[in-house]
C-alpha cells in the first residue's frame, strides 16, 4: 500500500502568537520557566460567570501589526493567524523556493470570528444596526482564505472544523498533502480566540475551573479557556535539505478517529483514545518503547484526565508510569480550535530543548491519576519522539507522532 512510500515530512517553519508568548522565542521562554498566562479576562464582560479567568492575549494592539484598513477587514482570530503564520513562513522561507501553486493552507478552525459576530447580534437584538463587517468571520473558513491571500499560497485551501482537535488534524492532513505530492510545502495550524459563546458555553456546562486549570491534580474542576494561533510549515525532508532549510523536527505520523460514544463525554474506559495513539504510532512506524512522553489533551476536567490516564496504561502497559503525560494547558489555557497546533508546537520545542515540560498548578495527588505528570517541574529528557493528543466534542480524537530534529 502506498503508505509504505510515504515521504519523511519535515517541519521547516514555526510561528506562534499566544497569551503565553507572542513569538516562538517568548513562548519557548514561557515553556521553560513554566510561567502561566492564565489571569483575569477583560475582553468582554465575564462578571456573570463563575469563572472570570482565562489565557487572554494581553496588551494586543492590532495597529502594531496591521494598518487600520487591514485590521478592519480581519477578525481577532484572522489577525492572530496572520501574525503567527507570518513568523512560520519567514522562519521557513519556503515561499521563495516554490511556485505559489506548490504551497497551500491547511487550517484548523474553531470559533473563528464569533467574537465580532456576537457584537453584531447584540446590536441587532437591541434594535440597532451593527456594522456588517463584524460578520465577515462568522464562518470558520475565513482565516484560511485570508492566509492564502496574504501570503500568496495558492496550491490548496481548507479548514478542518472538529472543535478542539481541529488544528492537530490540520497538521496531520497537511503532512498528507505533502506526502502525496499535492503540495511541496504547506502552512498548517490553527487560530482561535476567546468569545462570549465559548466562555458562556463551557461555563453553562460547569466545566470551567474558577482557579487556573490544574490538569491531573486532585480537586481539579475543569478547563481554563485560552486563545492564540500556531502554525508550522511542512515540507518533504529531501526538498528541505536540498534548499538548505533548517529542520525543526518531523511529523512522523498521525491518526484521526471518532469515538462514536457521546457528544461531550469521552468513552470512560479510554480504549478509543489508546487506539488512536496506537494508530498514530503505527502510521509513524514507531514502537511504544520509543515514545519519551506524551503531550496530553489534559484539559483539567475530572473525566478527561482520568480517561487519558487510563488510555496511557492501555497503550504503554507496565511502562506507563515511566512515560510522562504532561499538559501545557496550565500555561496556555485551552485554545480550542488552535489547541492542537499550540501543543504540537510546544512538543517540538521541548523535544529539541531536551526537556519534558511541567504540568502547572498542582493541587495534590489524585488517586485516579497515578502516572508521572511532571507536576513538580520540567524534566531533562533525551527522548526523540513524543505524542500530542487532541480530543474534542463529538468524540473526535487526533494524535500526532512528532520527533525532534536529527
Amino acid at each position, binding site marked *: *500500500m*502506498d503508505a509504505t512510500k510515504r515521504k519523511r515530512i519535515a517541519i521547516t517553519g514555526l510561528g506562534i502568537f499566544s497569551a503565553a508568548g507572542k513569538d516562538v522565542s517568548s513562548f519557548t521562554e514561557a515553556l521553560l520557566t513554566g510561567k502561566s498566562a492564565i489571569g483575569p479576562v477583560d475582553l468582554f464582560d465575564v462578571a456573570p*460567570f463563575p469563572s472570570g479567568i482565562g489565557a487572554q492575549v494581553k496588551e494586543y494592539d492590532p495597529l502594531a501589526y496591521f494598518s487600520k484598513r487591514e485590521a478592519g477587514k480581519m477578525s481577532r482570530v484572522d489577525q492572530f493567524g496572520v501574525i503567527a503564520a507570518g513568523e512560520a513562513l519567514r522562519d521557513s522561507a519556503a515561499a521563495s523556493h516554490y*511556485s*505559489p*501553486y506548490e504551497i497551500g*493552507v491547511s487550517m484548523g478552525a474553531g470559533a473563528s470570528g*464569533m467574537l465580532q*459576530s*456576537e457584537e*453584531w*447580534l*447584540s446590536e*441587532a*437584538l437591541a434594535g440597532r444596526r*451593527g456594522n*456588517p463587517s463584524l*460578520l465577515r468571520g462568522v*464562518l*470558520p*473558513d475565513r482565516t484560511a*482564505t485570508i492566509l*492564502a491571500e496574504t501570503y*500568496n*499560497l*495558492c*496550491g*490548496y*485551501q*481548507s*479548514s*478542518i*472544523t*472538529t*472543535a478542539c482537535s481541529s488544528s492537530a*488534524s490540520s497538521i496531520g*492532513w497537511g503532512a*498528507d498533502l505533502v506526502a502525496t505530492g*499535492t503540495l511541496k510545502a504547506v502552512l498548517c495550524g490553527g487560530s482561535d480566540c476567546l468569545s*462570549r*459563546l465559548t466562555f*458562556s*458555553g*463551557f*461555563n*453553562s*456546562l460547569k466545566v470551567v475551573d474558577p482557579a487556573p486549570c490544574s490538569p491531573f491534580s486532585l480537586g481539579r474542576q475543569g478547563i481554563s479557556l485560552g486563545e492564540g494561533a500556531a502554525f508550522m510549515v511542512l515540507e518533504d525532508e529531501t526538498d528541505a535539505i536540498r534548499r538548505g532549510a533548517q529542520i525543526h523536527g518531523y511529523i512522523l505520523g498521525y491518526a*484521526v*478517529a*471518532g*469515538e*462514536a*460514544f*457521546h*457528544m461531550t463525554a469521552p468513552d470512560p474506559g479510554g480504549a*478509543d483514545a489508546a487506539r488512536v495513539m496506537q494508530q498514530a504510532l503505527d502510521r509513524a512506524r514507531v514502537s511504544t518503547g520509543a515514545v519519551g512522553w506524551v503531550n496530553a489533551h489534559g484539559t483539567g476536567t475530572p473525566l478527561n484526565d482520568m480517561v487519558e490516564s487510563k488510555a496511557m496504561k492501555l497503550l504503554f502497559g507496565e511502562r506507563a508510569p515511566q512515560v510522562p503525560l504532561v499538559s501545557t494547558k496550565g500555561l496556555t489555557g485551552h485554545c480550542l480550535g488552535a489547541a492542537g497546533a499550540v501543543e504540537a508546537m510546544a512538543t517540538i520545542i521541548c523535544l529539541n530543548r531536551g526537556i519534558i515540560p511541567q504540568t502547572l498548578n498542582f493541587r495534590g495527588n489524585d488517586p485516579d491519576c497515578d502516572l508521572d505528570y511532571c507536576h513538580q517541574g520540567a524534566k531533562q529528557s533525551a527522548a526523540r519522539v513524543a505524542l500530542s493528543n487532541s480530543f474534542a*466534542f*463529538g*468524540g*473526535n480524537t487526533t494524535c500526532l507522532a512528532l520527533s525532534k530534529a536529527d
Partner: protein
Amino acid sequence: MDPAKNHIVITGLAAISAAGIGTEALREAVKRGESLLQPIPEEVIGQSGHFWARADAFRAADFMPPLKARKFDRCSLLAVVAAGMALKDAGIVAGSLEPTRIGIVLGCGLGGIANADEFLRGYFTSGAEGLQPMLFPNVVPNASASNASIEHGLKGPNVTVIQRFCSAESAFHMARRFLEEDRADVILTGGVDEVFPAMLNCFKAMGQLRSFGANFGEGAGILVLEREQHARNRKAQILAGAAGVRTIGRPAPGAHEEGYDRLLPEPCTADLLSLSGTATTDKWLLGHLPELPRLDIAPVLGRSLAMGGLAMAALVLMLKEGETGLHVAASPEGPYYAIDILGGDPVRS
C-alpha cells in the same frame, strides 16, 4: 494489496433535499430541471423577492422518536438520517463491518451556527440565566458528522471540513486519500447544510442576498467510498469510480495559466460536466470550462457551501455505465476542485 484493486469506488448514495427524500427524488428533480426554489416569506428577512430551497419533506419524526430528535440540531438530523440511508444503500448493516474501519468525512458549511445563534440570543436577552446548556454541544460545526458517527457507530476517521462552496469536495478529497492510505475500509463523505433565518439575516446585513447568499438550499448528499477490492470482497454494488481529484487554493496573480493547467489539464474530456458552487459564474474559470453537456443542480435545488455532496450524488445518478463525468466546483476567493467520476462498475464497463 494489489494496486490494480486499489481504485476508490462509490458503493452507496443518499440524498435529502428540496426534491424530497432519497436518490430517486433527486434523480427525477434533476431530470425535470424545474426549479424547486420557493419565495422566502417576507417576515423571515423583512424583504420579498428572495428564494430558498428547504427540504420541507424531511421530518425527523419519520426516522426516529421525537424525543430523540429533539437533542439534535437540524443539520445533525439531516446528517444522521442521510448517513443511515447511505449505509443501507451500500448494503452495510450494523455489525457487518468492523466499526473502527468505517469513517465519516463530511463537508458542512453552516452547521452549528443556528444553535450558536439561539444560545447567544438567550444570553443577550436574559443574561447567564438565559443560557440553555443543552444547545451548546451542537454549536460545533462537526456536530453533524459526529452525531452521525455516534448514531451509526462509525469509529473510523472522523473529520468535518469547510471551505466556502467547496466544502463537500474538500471532504471528498480527504476521504479518498484516507482510503488510499488504508486508514479505513469505508468512508461516508459528501456534504450537509441547513438554511435558517438567522443566517439569511447575516447575508442580508452583508448585502449578499443577491450574490453569494442568493438562492440557498439545504440538504444532505452523501457518497459511500471504499477501495474496489474491499467492495468486491463484500459483493457490494459499484455505482461509480472516484477516479481522481485536482485542486488549487486560488488563482495566483500573474500565473493563471499554471492554475488552469493544474485544475483542468488538457485534454479535458468527459461525457457530462457537473458544476457546483460558483463555477457557473466564476470569472477566472469563464472560458476555460470544457464545452460539454452540463449538469447544474443549483437552479433546481439551490446552492449551499456543502451542496457539492448533492451535486456529486446527482452526477453519479446521471452517468450511464461507462460514461465519464467531470465535477468542477468553485468558490469566491477559492478553492477550486475538479473531480473525475467514472459511471458504473469500472470492470463491467
